């Protein structure tokens, strides 16, 4: 009896230790990502000065006349992301408010799952849509739109991110106490006033957290921009022009046959470092805001 119990206790300890090891894998993965980026980025910055990297306006590591300025890739990433977010944030919040306050639950139960279908479509498929459907259609309105351009890549990326904003905003609005909503309607507020003067301010932490996640998502989106925005690292703010994002550059070089342990190969990791910093800031802010929200609720 005593022996059996002791054996049980030892087995229990071993199992809990295995569970702990599984949990620690996420920490190991985090450090591995940081390690692989820095182990190639540091040798890169030994050959290229950080000043040149941050201020040079050309990015031509694969040409004979080499320049290592990240700005064209960074601006490409920001340009496509801003277009995407300019679509996804207003449209996502509008849909969330609309489905919550304006329509019957019957309509909501039909529309919501269909909107969420948008999030299931693989990004390579969105890239196909952007290149072969959206760009030709837009070219009829904007004649000097290039066949690879930041505009349609950004717009389609907005479609992809929209359901994420809509569903996280929906969660945030739903978590506002009923009493607040009923008080607003009781005082004679319209649906619009209730939504934008009571519910959204009360849900603002959740919505800000959602927007931060969407920003990280837009920065990191790869296939849509690789297919539809082009692979020409030109420094431009013109959405009609082709641009290259950091992510598209990573795909372009790793798919090619650049030898490992070369400076060209390391440019990928220097670019990835910038991307990793940007997305980490956005997700960390999102985490911070969510924690703050949880604390206030308590």
């Amino acid at each position, binding site marked *: 009896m005593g022996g059996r119990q002791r054996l049980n206790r030892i087995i229990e300890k071993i*199992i809990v230790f295995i*569970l*702990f090891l*599984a*949990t620690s*894998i*996420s*920490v190991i993965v985090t450090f*591995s*990502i940081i390690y*692989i*980026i820095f*182990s*190639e980025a540091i040798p890169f910055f030994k050959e290229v000065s950080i000043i040149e990297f941050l201020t040079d306006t050309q990015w031509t590591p694969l040409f004979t006349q080499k320049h290592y300025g990240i700005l064209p890739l960074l601006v490409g990433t920001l340009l496509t992301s801003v277009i995407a977010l300019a679509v996804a944030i207003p*449209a996502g919040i*509008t849909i969330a*408010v*609309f*489905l919550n306050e*304006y*329509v019957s639950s019957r309509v909501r139960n039909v*529309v919501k799952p*269909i*909107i969420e*279908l*948008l999030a*299931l*479509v*693989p*990004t*390579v*498929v969105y890239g*196909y*849509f952007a*290149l*072969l*459907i959206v760009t030709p259609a837009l070219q009829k309105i904007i004649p000097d739109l290039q066949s690879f351009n930041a505009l349609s890549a950004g717009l389609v990326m907005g*479609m992809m991110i929209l359901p994420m904003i809509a569903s996280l905003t929906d969660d945030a609005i739903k978590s506002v106490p009923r009493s607040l909503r009923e008080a607003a309607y009781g005082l004679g507020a*319209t*649906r*619009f006033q209730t939504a934008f003067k009571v519910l959204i301010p009360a849900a603002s932490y959740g919505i800000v957290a959602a927007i931060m996640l969407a920003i*990280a998502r837009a*920065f*990191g989106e*790869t*296939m849509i921009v690789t*297919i539809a925005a082009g692979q020409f690292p030109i420094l431009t703010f013109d959405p009609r022009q082709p641009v290259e994002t950091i992510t598209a550059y990573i*795909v372009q070089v*790793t*798919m090619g046959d650049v030898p490992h342990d070369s400076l060209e190969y390391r440019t990928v*990791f220097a670019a*990835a470092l910038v*991307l*990793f910093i940007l*997305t*980490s800031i*956005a*997700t*960390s802010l*999102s985490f911070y805001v969510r924690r703050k929200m949880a604390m206030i609720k308590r």
Partner: protein
Amino acid sequence: MKKARIIDRLFGMMGWTVTVVSLFILALFIGVTLKLGLERLNLDFLLGYPSRFPEKAGILPALLGTFWLFVLTLIITVPIGVSAAIFLEEFMKPGKWATIIEFTIYNLSGVPSVIYGLLGLQFFVRWFGWGPTLISGAATLALLILPVVIVAAREALRAVPNTIREAALALGATRWQTVWHQVLPAAGPGIATGVILALSRAVGETAPILVIGAAGFIAFLPKGPFDDFTALPVQIFNWVSRPQHGFIVTAAAAIIVLLGLVFLLNGVAIFLRWKWQQRQKW
């Protein structure tokens, strides 16, 4: 007062417009793809091999590659993800360490998939010497969806009422026995739903697989985890990047298959969830 009414109405109209336009665009995208691709979608296409000639090209190696990836990713990610979720929900005390791990998992879910690709390239392909094989691809995808699996499994575990745990503990069960015999079976369908949803995302992932070096043109079928491979999304990307019009049609046909797979997986997950809610006794 009147102005407020008008704004209210206007926003309602805007809501309808935005919703209808979004649904219309989705319908348009799918409609155009179906119109282009359906004519190519036949048995020869599904069972054929890639070809330089678009009208002869098929997707069998890609389809099989995607199937292999699905199974291997499942095998790698489920034990790790569910174990981590059990530890975090059932054994870890809240505090500084719990917050740090939660922060880590949250941040990992925000890391772009292309960076997971770089991780896979450096670790699995180069250091481990696995090369651009199925196992490298599956391991990379498994790490990519791990945070999603952990979060989903935790939610399923949290949905199990505490009374079940308390009853088991009161009868003298140890904490692990409680988890293994009571909590895990009760949370099982919820976990399965989350895992399938996460895997449906992995099936459509392209960037990490491209980065680790999956080929876009493979004329043989992979026979084991250590074979080179291609996958459906990579095949689509390969065709989209070609100039001939014929490959646009082939890509559309492959997109129909990929969307069908992803929607089917989600349908299964939703069905499981629904079934579970019907059976739930608490």
